[in-house]
């Protein structure tokens, strides 16, 4: 079920996309009453917007392992 309490802004791309897909599938296959449908639709639009802005604004994060990171650690 959709948990409308989780703010869309806090979702990752993966999470937002998964929820959007679930909402779409629900509305296609087993739509609830009209007012809940409209609420879900609004959330779906927000999720889509979140994904789009993540794509547009993302910057590739790059980091390099240090020599210490690379040491073989026993029993890790």
């Amino acid at each position, binding site marked *: 079920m959709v948990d409308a309490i989780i703010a869309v802004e806090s979702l*990752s*791309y*993966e999470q937002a*996309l998964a929820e*959007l*897909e679930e*909402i*779409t599938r629900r*509305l*296609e296959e087993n*739509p609830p009453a*009209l007012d809940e*449908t*409209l609420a879900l*639709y609004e959330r*779906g*639009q927000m999720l*889509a917007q979140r*994904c*789009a802005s*993540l*794509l547009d604004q*993302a*910057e*590739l*994060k*790059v*980091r*390099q*392992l240090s020599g210490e*990171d*690379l*040491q*073989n*650690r026993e029993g*890790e």
Partner: protein
Amino acid sequence: MPAQPSLFQTSLSVTDLTRYMRQVLENDPILQDVWVTGEISNLSRPSSGHVYFTLKDAGAALRCVIWRSTLLKLRGVDLQNGLAVETHGQVGLYERDGTYQLYVDAVRPVGEGRLYQEFIRLKARLEAEGLFEEERKRALPERPRRIGIVTSPTGAALQDMLNTLRRRYPLAEVVVAPAAVQGVEAPGEIVRGLVALNRLAGVDVILVARGGGSLEDLWAFNDEAVVRAIVASAVPVISGIGHETDFTLADFAADRRAPTPTGAAVLATPDAADLRVALRRQEERLVAAVAGQLAVCQNQFAGLNARLGRASPAWRVRNDRQRLDELQSRLVRAGMAHLQLRRAHQQSLAARLKALSPLAVLRRGYALVQTAKGGVVRQAAQLEVGQEIRVQLADGSAGVVVQSVHLNAPPAAPAPQARE
């Protein structure tokens, strides 16, 4: 050996002799498929585009030529005077000069032949262990969140990959495990990088890459330890080593092989452009689903509304009024029809009546006989001789005295009834 040349041999022309020698060379199987080792000297690159040099060692020198067309296909070796090389080709004779030369079709650094043999041996052994089996290979994640790269931190390969990732899928995080990619320390550092990235949480895919080079340069990626580390990696590995046509054992061990480092970055990620298209399609589906549901509701509403309308008083009045009008028209139509029928009936009665009137009878020649008192005489038996009667005709009447009376023979039929 004869002490003196035979005086009985025919003398050949220079051309014939040269041609003969050429045939001897061209028919020799070894000379037509030979690898020769030596040092390059007298390198010359005239404007024709062909390359001429002499391959020499301590004991001899061999003229070599590489045609321009062949040069385009050769890769890797940078020809220089003093360079020790192995060349492959066919021995031929240039008749004009009377010189023989090697027509070169392949060049490799000295020792590469041996290296290649070792490559074949290693490949066979590891393949027999099943390390390169297709079934072992794992699927790549669709949208990796964290991408590991094992490569030289200073090489162009890393920059190429980062640029590609930035363009295609900036959502990901990249973790670079720096390693030498050639030299004796390379295999150890590559293995260490793979292990460290496996240990790090959340790495979805690892790229193992380096730029192009000779077989010797790429040799670290044929190292057994590297191959085993790639196979042992829990995280899927994509290899992007050297140029398009280079294959190392690491390529065979990897879950996917790309022809170049950039190719490896492409294989690892979806393209943001495709993701945007998929997102738009998802939005369209959402809108369509809601629109579909709205349409169903609207239909239901329209149907209910119509039913409600039919139950309303206003509708009933309107409906009754219409019924009333209808009945009235029918009534009127029925009335008129009846009237017409009666009129027709009347007309026919009137006609019949006219035909039956006494006047008409009189006109036909019959007479009405009345007594003096006025009573109608129907039977001759009523009359007496000498009686005064009146006879009515169509246009008048006459007073008449009965002179005689005759009675007819009694008729078979009963007496005619008096008409009313």
